[in-house]
């Protein structure tokens, strides 16, 4: 019935993976999209360059929440360098649906927040 709300997106929206808050995180950040008011909080623990734990809580649309769930699933247990090598196209590619220009910001909110968190990670 709809083009972008396919089963994959709706599944992640309904049952977001890595939902929650990691206690004593080594990296964390709250991202905000002033255009729509959506917020996301990402917390995680990085050890020896590996993202060992990561979780998010968010208040937002189906796209921003699904995109966060899909992104964290992909980067969990990966090296930080893996995240650093990703670009916006890679992140949007994970969603497997085409977003209109106005919705791209929803698809990238988690990624922007994750990069910000990792950039300020405790050593």
């Amino acid at each position, binding site marked *: 019935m709809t*083009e972008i709300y396919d089963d994959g997106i709706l599944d992640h929206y309904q049952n977001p993976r890595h939902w929650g808050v990691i206690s004593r995180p080594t990296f964390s950040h709250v991202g905000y999209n002033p255009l729509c008011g959506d917020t996301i909080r990402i917390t995680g623990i990085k050890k020896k360059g590996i993202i060992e734990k990561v979780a998010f809580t968010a208040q937002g*649309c189906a796209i921003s929440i699904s995109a966060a769930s899909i992104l964290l699933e992909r980067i969990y247990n990966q090296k930080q360098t893996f995240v650093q090598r990703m670009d916006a196209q890679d992140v949007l590619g994970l969603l497997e649906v085409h977003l209109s220009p106005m*919705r791209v910001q929803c698809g990238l909110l988690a990624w922007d927040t994750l990069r910000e968190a990792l950039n300020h990670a405790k050593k």
Partner: protein
Amino acid sequence: MSRFDVRSHFPLLVKRPEIAYLDSAATTLKPHTVIRAINEYLTCYSASVHRGLYTIAQEATEHYEKARQKIAQFIKADDPSEIIFTKGTTESINLVAYAWGRVTLTRADELVVTVMEHHSNFVPWQTLAKELGITLKVVDIDEEGRLFWSKDIVTKKTKLVAIAHISNVLGTINPIERIIADAHEKGALVLVDGAQAVGHMRVDVSKLDVDFYAFSGHKMYGPTGVGVLYGKRQHLDAIPPFLFGGSMIREVSLDATTFAETPRKFEAGTPPILEAIGLGTACEYLQKIDLEAVREHERALLEYALPLLVKLGLQVVGPDNAHERGALVAWDTPNVHSHDLAQILAEQGIAVRAGHHCAMPLHARLGIVGTTRASFGVYSTRRDIRRLIEAIKQAQQLFSFVKETV
């Protein structure tokens, strides 16, 4: 409904019959008369105004000044010189904030705005108040989105009340007659943001006795890039120019410049000529189909839509009674994010707007992140509304799991 059949006047609706256009509060579609007027300028006399001595320059000047007259007549201004062409409502308000505000206001003064203002009638005043260290009073609303107005809001210190004629989110028609009378009694001026009113109801600036009235061309069937600041002649004469450059001068020497008279004093640079001509034609179009009929048509649509939206369990904001509202309705859809809803509607060719509609203080006041808004124009139909209702139902169905999980 069939009595008011103007859809064939709008080429876009003929070319794109699949679209249910419900975003006229953002911008209206353009009737063929407006398109023709613009086209005629571009193909027959596309010269600059006020300077050239050749035929087409004179024709362009005549049409441009004629447009000013048509607009003056349309809003019942005393004189065409009280019509200043700007880029739009935003620039019109900024003109008053910068040119009038900066030279007139001092630290002891107060400005009054309301919590329902569009950012364009809020941020200029907030910025000015901070810069000059003056007090900005913000008038609150009641549970139905009506203004909590009382006479004593305006004090001897108040220099200006800046208020929307119709809220672009709540739809509330504000009692500006009363507000203007109360303000004048204390010696304060009133600026009305008429972006959502002109083109939807009769506006008579003389009868209102309003000091400044700002509106946009493209929200009333004219082109983008042109708007109007109406101001009483005595105020405009007293305000220094806003933008400096060509066209707005009388004489320039190495030592000094004298300025042209109102309205040219405020129209520096080559003006939006084709846009102004298009807007003049839009006024004629509206006069022809009659604004009483427009108001009645749009009010009837709202009366049809409101109960249907409420029945879907939506949290409609603004007054319950269609008589108290302009031609728009916004709501919060429980369990469906406004952008998800707008996206699903878009996939079915239904054009609505979602988000904070440039009214973040209002949404904070309402305690909601964003709303979805449907707004009407002369071409809107009950069928558009039925399509909207059906599509909202489908979106609610698609996201029905949210209730169970969250």
